[in-house]
């Protein structure tokens, strides 16, 4: 399946618990009750402590509106990371968010269609490059990446948000890729 902003389904390769089998401990771990409808989150609920920690970490990195990087650019870092690791499902979800919050669907589409090296303006270039460098194993983020982020106008908190968004998607990409596939 190619990279897309379309809504995709996701099918687990292992059988998650059915919705009516979930206990209170599972529901607590899901954080958002609506996630009981998702086979992905029901599967992760089999280890409820880790799922709860994963989701609360995720929510603060992406939704905490106390200053820092605009939501659009947190989603851009998530999209670039997912594009580079090759998580088609993750990229589809976060590309839609990045396009919606930035109102720059064409730039997001170029990132998906042509990849992380496709042309972007200076600020997006710096965010994408830092996310991709941090996604490499071993890590390749260096002082030159921070200098480019600062030159593009990012302060400490905004740079920290780029680091956390890209780092978190290394977690999220591998979990989704390990356990199932887009459908």
């Amino acid at each position, binding site marked *: 399946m190619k990279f897309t902003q379309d809504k995709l389904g996701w099918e687990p390769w292992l059988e998650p618990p059915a919705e009516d089998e979930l206990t209170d401990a599972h529901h607590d771990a899901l954080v958002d009750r609506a996630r009981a409808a998702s086979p992905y989150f029901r599967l992760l609920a089999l*280890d409820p402590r880790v799922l709860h920690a994963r989701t609360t*970490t995720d929510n603060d990195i992406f939704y905490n509106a106390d200053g820092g990087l605009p939501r659009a650019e947190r989603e851009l870092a998530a999209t670039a990371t997912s594009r580079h690791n090759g998580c088609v499902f993750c990229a589809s979800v976060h590309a839609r968010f990045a396009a919606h919050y930035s109102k720059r669907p064409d730039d997001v589409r170029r990132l998906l269609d042509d990849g992380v090296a496709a042309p972007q303006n200076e600020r997006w270039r710096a965010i994408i490059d830092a996310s991709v460098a941090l996604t490499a*194993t071993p890590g390749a983020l260096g002082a030159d990446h921070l200098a480019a982020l600062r030159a593009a106008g990012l302060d400490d908190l905004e740079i920290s948000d780029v680091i956390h968004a890209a780092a978190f998607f290394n977690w999220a990409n591998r979990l989704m890729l390990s356990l199932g596939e887009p459908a």
Partner: protein
Amino acid sequence: MTADTSADVSAGTTTDPTTDPTVDVIDTLAGIRPGSRLDLLRDRRPEAREHAQRAYEALFAPDSEQEVTLVERVALAAFVAGLHQDPAVARHYADRLAEHAPDLRTTIEREIEASRTVGPYGVYDEPSLAQESLIGPAYRAGRRAALGERLATALDHAHLLVFRPRESSRDALKRLLDAGWTTTGVVTISQLVAFLTFQVRVVAGLRLLGADR
């Protein structure tokens, strides 16, 4: 233990850093001291800070070892951390392994040396992405008798997730099930490997930001 020891992560201590609530492992590994610029920065995302630590504790001070034992957890962690080549993080998990399974330490070190590479890579099935496919090594742990087939298969999966996550497959999970892992065990080891790829990147990123003014 206070953060004053954070500059020397190899300092001997009788405190278990997994369960001591005063020790934040990301702070320790990134060298972040109380009241420092990076400490204040981390406080701006307090839930992320706290729950990154809670995830670490859930994985390495688990409620139950029924699905994945502590020895299996620290062996996998030492392997994954070693693949990332961040000396402070690698040493932290190598020390946990030496503590819980000293007999596995050399075996894991040799598996790390034998399988270090540069990622992410992997082949895309999608025809329109074929030109982006990067063929690279599909590692299979060599010292399977010393590791035991169950742990060896988990290392195989960890290497897949670290370096070529796009090549994950139903067959890869079947190999884990065939080696004796349950569905819940597969979820936990997937979380463990994936979480570590987050933790090591936060540590590296914050350390770099702390050094940059």
